[in-house]
């Protein structure tokens, strides 16, 4: 297990991860930079501070915390963070979305990429999987945490609410779910496409302990995850409603859904990289 990083160190890692993301999607001219950038700080906080995890990678993860990415399209941030955590070589990021790569467009176990425990991409399935993993941990008398990240647009999938109903009824209180609440989806703002309305009230009504956080403030994320852990073990699953800015860190990608699934051209790449310090060396 790696030692925990300071906020300054975490921010430096996040800057490199953001560089990786824009370079990866530029290189294959496809992928989803917006949500990846928005969730970068959260991923870095989880993998470099909060989670007890082993990059040697054992699928069963006994005694380890687990993370599941339900909104699999933000794979660039996941891959970069896994690589920098030591799950696989950082240079492999160059193969993202290319033929014969383990770094599929959406995360997959099929190619045995260390760090990935379930395929995701078809939305709405990750919370159910996380619940299953949490049930297995309870049977194994393993009180590690199970984390899952979902998109906010993903909340429109019916399966999410099947799972949302199950977790509190089965008192899965080591389950910490987060929603990337950026208010955007492919076709526009969630409020216009199919309004999520009051997510806090919805999850509370289902029986969750709900907290809110700012997902683009490193210290705020750490505080939120600490809060979530302090609420664990009390009979309720925890839902972290995390406000983020899609495209965070690259000014022209922020504040709109337009960069949900679009790759930058050469000039845009240069402009984006100019805003992001190279801290760990580019792959």
């Amino acid at each position, binding site marked *: 297990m790696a030692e925990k990083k300071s906020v300054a160190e975490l921010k430096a890692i996040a800057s490199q991860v953001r560089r990786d993301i824009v370079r990866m999607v530029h290189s294959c001219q496809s992928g989803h930079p917006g949500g990846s950038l928005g969730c970068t700080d959260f991923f870095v906080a989880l993998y470099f501070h909060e989670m007890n995890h082993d990059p040697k990678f054992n*699928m*069963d*993860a*006994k005694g380890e915390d*687990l993370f*599941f990415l339900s909104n699999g399209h933000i794979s660039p941030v996941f891959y970069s963070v896994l690589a920098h955590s030591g799950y696989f070589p950082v240079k492999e990021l160059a193969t993202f979305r290319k033929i014969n790569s383990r770094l599929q467009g959406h995360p*997959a*176990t*099929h190619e045995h990429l260390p760090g990935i*425990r*379930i*395929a*995701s*991409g*078809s939305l*709405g*399935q*990750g*919370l*159910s*999987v*996380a*619940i*299953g*993993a*949490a*049930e*297995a*941990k309870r*049977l*194994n008398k*393993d009180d590690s945490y199970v984390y899952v990240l979902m998109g906010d647009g993903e909340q429109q999938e*019916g*399966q999410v609410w*099947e*799972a949302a*109903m*199950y977790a509190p009824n*089965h008192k899965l209180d080591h389950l910490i779910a987060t929603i990337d609440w950026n208010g955007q989806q492919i076709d526009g703002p969630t409020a216009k496409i199919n309004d999520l309305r009051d997510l806090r009230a919805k999850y509370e009504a289902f029986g969750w302990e709900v907290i809110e956080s700012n997902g683009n403030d490193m210290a705020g994320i750490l505080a939120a995850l600490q809060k979530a852990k302090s609420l664990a073990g009390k009979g309720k699953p925890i839902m972290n409603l995390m406000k983020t800015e899609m495209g965070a860190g690259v000014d022209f990608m922020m504040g709109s859904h337009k960069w949900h699934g679009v790759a930058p051209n050469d000039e845009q790449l240069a402009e984006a990289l100019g805003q992001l310090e190279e801290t760990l060396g580019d792959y």
Partner: protein
Amino acid sequence: MTKFEILGKNDTRSGFGVGLLEAGQQNPNVVALCADLIGSLKMDAFIKEFPERFFQVGIAEANMMGIAAGLTIGGKIPFTGTFANFSTGRVYDQIRQSIAYSGKNVKICASHAGVTLGEDGATHQILEDIGMMKMLPGMTVINPCDYNQTRQATVAIAKYEGPVYLRFGRPKVPIFIKEDMPFVIGKALKLVEGSDVSIFATGHLVWEAVLAEEILREKGISAEIINIHTIKPLDEKAILDSVAKTGCAVSAEEHQMNGGLGDSIAQTLATHNPLPQEYVAVKDSFGESGVPEQLMEKYGLNAAHIVEAALKAIDRKRKK
């Protein structure tokens, strides 16, 4: 006289129930999930003995498939239980992504398959499930024929690593597979030796094939009866060895003609040894309410239809 003695009568789902209990006793990692159909799936005995290893998911099959996938991460061997319709079509994408593509060791156990579900009608009588499941890369598809074989199959799949679709049914049907007969996943079971026609049957149609063999024998025709309990991976060798001897084939299944066992056999024949084949299957229609025997007759799925198909296959062979 048929070549097999009727040892009793019971539903295949009860075979699943006892098999699940047995698998649970053999391996503490075996767990079970159900979507509000415990009684129908005969899961009570397992739940009574292992309450902490059972998960009642409620009427939420998509969630059940995802939870099952998650349980494998942690070393569990989950058996999901609901009707075949809700085990496949309703949750196809969940199975495809979270179980099949992810290579998870989930056992999808599906009762009330086919028209013999009876009175509930076509909404519940799935006839497309074998096709859907066999198309998924890496998925093993098994459709046992009686109580004993369903018990054997349930125990066997717990010991096999990888996703499995186990299909069984609702009505009480003859038990004729002896407990000491072998059950090996992917290995066809030859029930009767014959020389004029090969009848490859799965599920409830295996007993009908045994009945058909008797009728054909009385007509002076020697039918070979082979029980294909594992549709995928298909025992191609057993099929090709048999047709090399008989020169023609009949496939028999309680499933759509499109995409079922018959198509798997046709693919094998077409690519290795093209010979006449006749299908006993549902011909591109939905089922309806009724009692199982009536529905089997109306949809062309009983011994009389197998005999008719066998005669036609033999006739085509002779005209070649």
